[in-house]
């Protein structure tokens, strides 16, 4: 086996995450899918760090977690705000802006 399998796994997770964004209607689940994609990227970073023999990848992954955390906070705040005014967490519901 080869460390590159980790990268393949990350690609798979990334793709599943992207698919999740496309098919799910609950805003929170959509957002979790995005988080899954970020995690997949992290996995790739970690695996590549190992393959390249430097720690930069791990550091990046660390920062990504920080960024993701910040993003989650903002995102959830926006979702909560939307939910409060619309009583719905469906991502299809806010659909006034179009065409």
């Amino acid at each position: 086996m080869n460390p590159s399998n980790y990268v393949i796994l990350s690609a798979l997770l990334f793709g599943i995450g992207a698919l999740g964004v496309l098919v799910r209607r609950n805003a929170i689940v959509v957002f979790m899918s995005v988080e899954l994609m970020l995690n997949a990227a992290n996995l790739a970073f970690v695996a590549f760090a190992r393959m390249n023999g430097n720690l930069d990848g791990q550091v990046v992954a660390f920062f990504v977690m920080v960024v993701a955390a910040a993003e989650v906070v903002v995102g959830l705040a926006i979702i909560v705000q939307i939910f409060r005014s619309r009583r719905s967490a469906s991502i299809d519901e806010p659909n006034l802006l179009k065409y």
Partner: protein
Amino acid sequence: MNAVATVVHAVDVTPWEMPTLDYRLLAPVLIVLGAGVVSVLFEAFLPRGVRRPVQLTLVFVTLIAALVAVINLNGVRETAGQGALAIDGPGLILQGAVVVIAILGALLMAERGLDPNGDAFAARASSLPGSEDERQFTARGYFQTEIWAFFLFAVGGMMLFPIANDLLMMFVALEVMSLPLYLLAGMARRRRLLSQEAALKYFVLGAFASAFFLYGAALLYGFSGSISFGEIAASLGSKTGETALILIAIGLVVAGVLFKIGAAPFHQWVPDVYQGAPTPVTGFMAAAVKIAAFGALLRLLYVALGGMRWDWTPMLWVISILTMFVGAILALTQSDIKRMIAYSSIAQAGFILLGVVAVSAKGLEGAIFYLIAYAFTTIGVFAIISMVRDENGEATHLSKWAGLGRQSPVIATLFTIFMLALTGIPLTSGFIGKFAVFSAAYASGDKWLVIAAVVASLIAAFFYMRVVVLMFFTEPNEETAIVAIPSIFTTIALAAAATVTVLLGVVPQPLLDLIANAGVFIR
């Protein structure tokens, strides 16, 4: 660099070399971000009544200081922060442009003479739309002064984005720039449902795009073993093989940045967000984000991926043509002026991409000139949009603009000048910008791209001129909106935007010289 160095001489645990920080080089960004922190502290500790004036003072002092700091760096060409930032001519010009546009944007955001209830932002963003809370907050004249902290952080991110010299810095700068904007987009005073929807869309799609960028960055890192642009470029030149990896990596990274510039097919957020966001934010965002994101795209493509230009130029041709036409064609049938301008900004992004695909010094110069010209014009456009109002706030439906030329000839004339600039009529900045990017593309052999751009400009002319037709060629009716008298803030912004739009059309040489003297990106 450092990682390699440590490997060489350290077997045992050795003390770290302390990083050297040249504060002069970092000053512009530090000033702005530091001011952001100060602004947060103001929010925490100052009584509500004095927050607004203090914050405004802080913002303008900060921005002017940042501008001075940028000018102070004139001629610098080096990296800073252990190679994370590239302080070079184009980077500084873009930073400077961001700061100047930010000043204009701040002026628009500070305006509170237009809406009888206050500025463009919700009195309390957390109050429910239509609730008693909201009414009370509005009636009591509350202001959400936190916007200024967000604004400063966003400006800081925008200043970092085009000078980021590694993938991590770029990613973080992207987020620093975006998160405050997501928030600001959702804080409109009127039509709050639309505003919140815009924020949600901007946020979800922005995060989605960031994920693409990040995954592409991971692959690039995997390929080259480093996240620094210089080393990526070096490894692209030296390594062979792993073609699919690097192509996918480029594709995903570029897709992430193309989202920010609003290139088709990553453009669909643009109309919705531009329409929903508070108009001053839209103006600021449309102008400054474009500068920052294009700066980043240019650096990414020219510095890190320059060696692969034969691979990515055809892809950008396709994107550029698609962007120009999607923007221009869809704008034709819009009835909301903000939405129309949003589509127009998509088309304009397509034109700027012409400078990018030229992959030459001329292309870089052209793109930068275009960005600056476009940014000023756009700020002006949104300044006027924020002034045209009826009893429900801004009258963005085009039918309400009918006969505006009769009611407020000055404003209508200014708007016409902006429209002419966007169309690319000579003696406006837009023409010189178009000329610069078209000629760069032509010189690089992209004749057909220029022809396509010409056709797209033509389609675009149609909807720009439609507004002029409405304003000047039709009689006002009872539907017609009125132009509110703005305070000094918007007036300054509008005057500056109009002046620059005309000035850059008539005497573009100083700016062209400035850009040309700035040289190319540092590697």
